[in-house]
């Protein structure tokens, strides 16, 4: 398996992106049509690349690549079944957060490189948002890893064989879900693009291959984040009757569907409100979640 893992990550990424595309249609209330999805992707690819007339143009074209690398890197650390995973590090959970951290510079580069006022505003908004949300994300990963006594995602799955972590640490789950949704810059956290306010924001100038890469990367991000949610909180591949990989796929799809469904039903949050929520509520609560995780680790997991 180890020789095939890079290919496996790409296969999971492609399949996951396609499934997320279908889920998007399903959530939007449209009958899922793979052909329409493929046709839309092909139409995007046929557009010529746009070349912003600015000095930082190379940042503009580097950004989709960095975004894709960050998304694929995050996906590589998600274990899908025993023996079926991308990279198995003993610090995999932190490495996942490290990969997600590079979404921030990528979107800032996109906004800055475009050189249009609204795009730069989108980039700066995203910067402020992610600085506020990266910390609860990393802290909750530590809180969930504490009972397992290990930062290796497979160990975190193994420790949930009896009770999934969602039931043990509901506070951590409640903090994780909005932060995870924010990392994917999906509604209601679609502040960098914000079609209604910024007219596409950080991504307004992208055409053709660049735009296709960004769409692809966003869907892979959603797959990676949903997969990690399943691993950290829902017991990963563990479940009765069905084979492990199928359980994992079902859980990931359920989480991704939940994210998309919630996003369609909530209005976009205002940036100042999101920031004050993140700094004044989410961060202190995340510290509380770590303390609680330490307590239950000492009481039940030793």
């Amino acid at each position: 398996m180890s020789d095939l893992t890079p290919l496996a990550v790409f296969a999971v990424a492609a399949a996951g992106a396609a499934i997320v595309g279908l889920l998007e249609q399903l959530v939007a209330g449209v009958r899922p049509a793979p052909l329409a999805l493929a046709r839309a992707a092909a139409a995007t690819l046929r557009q010529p690349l746009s070349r912003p007339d600015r000095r930082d143009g190379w940042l503009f074209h580097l950004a989709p690549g960095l975004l894709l690398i960050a998304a694929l890197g995050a996906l590589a650390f998600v274990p899908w079944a025993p023996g079926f995973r991308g990279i198995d590090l003993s610090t995999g959970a932190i490495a996942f957060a490290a990969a997600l951290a590079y979404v921030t510079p990528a979107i800032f580069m996109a906004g800055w490189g475009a050189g249009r006022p609204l795009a730069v505003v989108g980039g700066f908004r995203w910067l402020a948002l992610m600085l506020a949300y990266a910390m609860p994300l990393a802290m909750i990963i530590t809180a969930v890893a504490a009972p397992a006594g290990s930062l290796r995602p497979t160990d975190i799955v193994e420790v949930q064989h009896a009770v999934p972590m969602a039931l043990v640490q509901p506070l951590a789950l409640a903090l994780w879900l909005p932060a995870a949704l924010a990392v994917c810059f999906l509604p209601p956290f679609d502040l960098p693009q914000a079609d209604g306010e910024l007219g596409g924001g950080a991504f307004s100038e992208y055409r053709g291959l660049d735009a296709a890469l960004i769409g692809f990367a966003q869907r892979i991000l959603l797959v990676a984040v949903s997969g990690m949610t399943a691993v950290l909180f829902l017991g990963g591949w563990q479940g009765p009757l069905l084979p492990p990989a199928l359980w994992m796929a079902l859980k990931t799809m359920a989480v991704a569907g939940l994210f998309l469904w919630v996003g369609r039903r909530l209005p976009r949050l205002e940036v100042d409100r999101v920031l004050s929520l993140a700094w004044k509520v989410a961060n202190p609560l995340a510290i509380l979640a770590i303390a609680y995780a330490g307590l239950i680790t000492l009481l039940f997991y030793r």
Partner: protein
Amino acid sequence: MSDLATALVFWPAAVLMLVTGLYVFITSSMARAGLLLLASLGIEGLVFLALSSEFLGVLQLLMMSGEMVTMVFFMVMFMPDPGGLMGMDMVHDKRRSAAVAGLVGVGLALVAVLTDWPARAVGTDAPDVRAIGFEVMGRSMLTFLFAAMTILFAMVGGVLLAKYGGRYRIGAPAGEDRGGEAR
């Protein structure tokens, strides 16, 4: 990792680290300078990984992303010409500082190469995360607490320094938005 894989990661990463580090001070666009610094220090994380310090490499990648992006934010705020569109010169004492820095850099490199370092038999296994955790929570607990206190002081001090009407009674100039403090 095998020796070949390590070398394939180490050499390009180390060279790229120096090149991006140098370009930080050559480019005139602030966004580029900050992102190049992020590249330099992030690639240093890859070098750590190649030197089989897995935990430190991953942590370096994680920390530097947030820190350097914050730095870009501040640079764009405080530079008179953040986009680098006017091509202004941001260097003083160019020749002397380059000479001093070059001498120090080359001197350190020479010392590194020429000294007969006590190289021990090398085990490839770096200490795993668990061992580092026991170190932090055991023998080095006091040092770690001291680092934590330093961060706390830095947070409080930073806020005090940066807020209007702080230690030096600096008020907001007339007409400037006080950033929500007035409310």
